């Protein structure tokens, strides 16, 4: 019991942690992620991500649709890099089925998917700047180049975003010569555009202040959580399936995999994506030069498409990391079980660790920098 002179002030001076519910509708959560943040002042102490607001049952659909139908659906798993989702499933099915893929188709696959990598990173760049508060101005420029690539996609696949271009056994359509020359022109002017972005962003003092030393991802922690893609390469782990587990015609192509020599922060993750765009551009150039003539599909694209019985796992290096597909087929016209290994799902799981003890403004800087696509998380 406090005496009259000793007034106990503690209850009145008590500070409390505040719970903030961010999302599922929030401008910075890139769709429908919900974060429950425990704030101490403006410092995040604990984060609980709640996913599944876009759970569209892609795996369930895989069991219930024929292979041919399902091919059209999976572009929606990761709508910013539909080529990669198609490719991951096509590869898994090809591995299980044992069918050959013609070389021309492989080159076309590499070409369109590297184009897709560029569009994905461009969109990331635009939205990331929006996350950092540059609402007007800069975010519009990456979209300008993205539209050019989307036009090319539309010409070859018939859709701006949902391509359904890479099919089991090959690709859907042969590009015209005019298309190839348009793409060549794009690859020639694109590096200048990237220089333009870098001129605006990379030297911007506020951008540097917001990103340098923020959200440092330790190498060991990243490996523990199974982080993949540019995020882990920016922390110095050499994991690029195009090099470490080479597939398709990547062994024949010359390109660098940028690798950091220290634990990466948000700025590193930004700069690595910029570098990757340049590398992708180089890959497209080489593919255009090396593109052979020949067939484009090793399997008949008919509605009754079947995959032989068996099980297998195949993965491709998507813009966000290892995008894998585990297939169990019983030889019928639909899969027995399809399991997706989505890079966004795995990369997002580290978010609570990265956000710990950062101010609330950094939530956007960090969350944006690991480049998460919500349908890729929720499926």
């Amino acid at each position, binding site marked *: 019991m406090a005496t009259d002179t000793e007034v106990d002030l503690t209850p009145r001076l008590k500070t409390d942690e505040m719970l903030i519910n961010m999302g599922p509708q929030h401008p910075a959560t890139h769709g429908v992620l919900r974060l429950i943040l425990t704030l101490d002042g403006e410092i995040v102490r604990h984060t609980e991500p709640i996913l599944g607001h876009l759970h569209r049952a892609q795996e369930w659909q895989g069991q219930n649709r024929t292979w041919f139908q399902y091919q059209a659906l999976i572009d929606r798993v990761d709508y910013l890099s539909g080529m990669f989702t198609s490719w991951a499933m096509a590869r898994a099915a090809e*591995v299980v089925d044992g069918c050959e893929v013609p070389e021309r188709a492989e080159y076309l696959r590499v070409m369109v998917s590297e184009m897709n990598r560029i569009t994905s990173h461009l969109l990331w760049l635009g939205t990331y700047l929006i996350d950092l508060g540059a609402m007007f101005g800069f975010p519009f420029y990456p979209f300008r180049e993205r539209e050019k690539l989307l036009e090319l996609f539309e010409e070859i696949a018939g859709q701006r975003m949902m391509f359904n271009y890479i099919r089991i056994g090959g690709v859907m359509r042969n590009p015209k010569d005019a298309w190839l020359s348009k793409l060549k022109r794009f690859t020639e002017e694109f590096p200048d555009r990237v220089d333009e972005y870098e001129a605006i962003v990379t030297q911007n003092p506020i951008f540097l202040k917001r990103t340098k030393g923020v959200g440092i991802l330790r190498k060991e922690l990243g490996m523990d959580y199974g982080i993949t893609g540019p995020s882990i390469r920016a922390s110095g782990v050499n994991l690029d399936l195009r090099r470490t587990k080479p597939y398709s015609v990547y062994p024949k192509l010359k390109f660098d995999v940028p690798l950091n020599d220290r634990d990466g922060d948000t700025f590193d993750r930004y700069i690595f994506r910029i570098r990757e765009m340049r590398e992708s551009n180089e890959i497209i150039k080489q593919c255009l030069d090396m593109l052979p003539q020949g067939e484009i599909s090793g399997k008949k694209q008919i509605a009754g498409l079947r995959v032989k019985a068996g099980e297998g796992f195949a993965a491709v290096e998507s813009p966000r990391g290892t995008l894998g597909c585990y297939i169990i087929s019983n030889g019928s016209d639909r899969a027995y079980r399809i399991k997706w290994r989505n890079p966004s799902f795995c990369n997002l799981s580290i978010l609570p660790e990265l956000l710990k003890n950062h101010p609330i403004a950094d939530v956007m800087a960090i969350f944006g920098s690991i480049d998460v696509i919500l349908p890729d998380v929720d499926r």
Partner: protein
Amino acid sequence: MSETPAAKPPEEPKGLGLCGQFLKDHGIATTRLPDSCGVETIEIDGAHLEAAMKLLRGSSEIKLDYLVAISGVDSADTFDSVYQLWSYTNNNELIIKVRVKKTDVVEGQLPLVPSLARFWSAANWHERETYDLVGIRYYGHPYLRRILNVWDWDGHPLRRDYKQLVDALNDKASGSMR
């Protein structure tokens, strides 16, 4: 994973593979299953799973330190929990399956598999997802709660016997599209 597919149909495996032998040396019994597309596949008893994982992850020669994915499969007579293991540093690959027979599962309860989440953070969300969709209960998991579906969802959608909910929001009976 090599580009050339494995021969079909898969012939019966002869003896133990690299990882199976390694685990046997450390006193953990495994059964070799048919390779899935050239990747060594082993079955392991649930009780030894955590020890085996620790060994595989920690050893310097095998070093399977990259847990790619955990999938749940509702097979004909078992519930499988499938672990894809890769390595960050070398080209080793391994698929581990833990199988729970459907006849062993008590009526009204979920099949039990030990959780890896305590020592391998990557397993955390994968296990939650498998619990949500396939209904495998990972015991020892710190926060085993539905991750993709709403929290009070009924049933596990990727089970073969799952009955789809029909109500005013979604009244299309399953299969009508096909």
